[in-house]
């Protein structure tokens, strides 16, 4: 854990209270083993910011509901390796319910 953590820019947006989306930065410490994008999101919610909304259910690709944009590319958060700094956005920015969770989730 000595080395620098993973820097994550996360899109935050609550259509009820925010005029427009913004990005929030978090730093997640690297584990001594491969982590998924999910693992990072879980770390943020459990340790840094419980208000972050994202989807998680089965953790291993069965439910296929955790689609997310990692550096612009749509992937499943549970099976995608978090191997460097990244920007996380919802799949469909026009239909956000809150943060990373959109209608098509």
């Amino acid at each position: 854990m000595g080395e620098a953590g993973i820097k994550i820019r996360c899109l935050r947006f609550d259509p009820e209270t925010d005029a427009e989306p913004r990005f929030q930065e978090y730093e997640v410490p690297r584990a001594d083993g491969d982590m998924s994008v999910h693992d990072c999101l879980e770390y943020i919610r459990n340790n840094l910011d419980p208000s972050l909304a994202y989807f998680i259910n089965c953790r291993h690709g069965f439910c296929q509901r955790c689609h997310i944009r990692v550096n612009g590319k749509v992937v499943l958060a549970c099976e995608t390796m978090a191997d460097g700094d990244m920007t996380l956005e919802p799949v469909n920015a026009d239909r956000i319910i809150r943060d990373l969770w959109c209608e098509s989730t």
Partner: protein
Amino acid sequence: MVGSEGAGGPTTVFAARAGADVLIASKGKISKCGASQMAGADFNLDGESALEIGLPGDGRDSPRRFFEDLVREGFYLGNQKIVEKYVEYAAKNTADLLEWGMPVYRFEQVHAEEMARGLISSGVKWVRAIRRQVKEMNIPILEDTMVVDLLTREGRVIGAMALDLKTGEIVLIKAKAVVLCTGGWQQAYHFSTASTDLTGDGQAMAYRAGAELLGMEMVQYAPMTMLWPPIARKSIIPYILCETEAGPLIQLLNSDGERFMERYDPSTMEQGTKEIVAIGTELEVEAGRGSPHGGAFFALKHLTPDGVDFIAGKYREFLDENSDKRSEFRTLLPYLLERSKIEDLEVGNAAHFMAGGIKVNELTETTILGLYAAGECSGGLLGSVRVASACTQVSAQGRIAGEVAPTYMREVGHLEPDLSQLEEIYGRIMRPLESGDGVPPLDLLRRVHSLTAECLKVIKGGEGLRKAQRELAGMRKDEAPRLHVSASGTRRLNYEWELSLELPKMLLCLEMYSLGCLMREESRGVHYRGDFPQTDNDRWCVNIVYSNRGGEAETSFEEPVVTTLRPPTGKTSFNQAVESATASLKRRGVE
């Protein structure tokens, strides 16, 4: 209908066929939530019945033989009337699923039985087949909607109150009957295999509404669940690999590099009964010989890279043959096999399956009118082990509930909800969002998990269980009522709010679990007491029943319901008891 998957889906299909007006409330989206999607999946039925529906069954097998194996493997605590129904509906249910388009990969010994007695399919294809039926019948579904509590009046269940997680709206559902198919309470444990939605909702709601629970002390732990690296955490891939032809090649090592199962089960080693592998793993960790993250090493290095590639190739062939695209097998498994060439993976014991739950009879009726329970949230079928296929349990009981509930619904009318009860539940739902402060739900969850990690593992002892009882009661009384969101007061997709409503349910299930484990001064099936390692048929061939008496748990004992098979008497060592319970199972010897 609360729940939409392996049990809930068939319930609604059969209830709608019987003319009932059905509504599903599901915590997630149909075919994309719960435990069923993650199943292997295997389904049991006896050979004779298999032949009748055109499957390659073994003619030596019969419903009677299947029944006897189930009762014996459950260490005689199962309700034999329910087991008889299970055997009957296992065959009917398989025919349903084939008709609904669930593919059969293989017909084989799915639980190491003496003869082929079941079929292998995929959990994802199973729940999609169910979804097609539910959609074809136009059954309405409230998705991403968490049922918070049941409504009761005049001793009957008359509806439910729910929270729409996306909008934050509170939903009032009036119903003549409610069927619970909500799965287990795995999320209460620090390490588990289940999806995030399994938080004991059904068990807790039924208990609060006055229904009895049974066998809550019977929780199965899956050894060989991925502990490390994090990306693979909670996957049961190593456990599944152990069940395949590759099984005998697998070695479990401690930090000294020893194959420690030599100490606990030298004849079958890693291939032994899962309960004994879990106990062995935990004893090694306690002795200071565990892996860095508190488990054992799952080793394949001795096979050389070519050997590992061979396993990977075999698995790929199997998936290709069956056009199976599941990501856990297509992506995670090859990744882990590749890693295993250079380092040993870490695996541990995870809370996996609840053999007890809401007490039901063979018709899935609970002990209060208008309430039914099917699948993992119910208790009574399995006794003290998850015997045979859980997929078959959930589908069989789902179909039974779907056939039985409509008859009751025709006999009764709707009752108007009791206003004071609505206000009480509504107040409880809204309290975590009110102004002021309180206990942050994630803090409490962390403390619950450190308690399960310390006192509620595979091997239990009186001292730890008494500590768990004290602390859980304190959390229930002093902290659960003060749960409060700390970060955001939004009503939409507010995880802290959802957790504030789930935590009291998890606490309730854990309290029943630790109470039952403390009372049961013996070891039986999945229940293991380090301080009472014998299986004691003279004193403990009974079920523990839990009920709610003014907010405090009251327990009583019930002899198992016997139709034809008398339970044994006498005391035996745990290993001997396991040996006789599983005598008919074929276990591979050591190579």
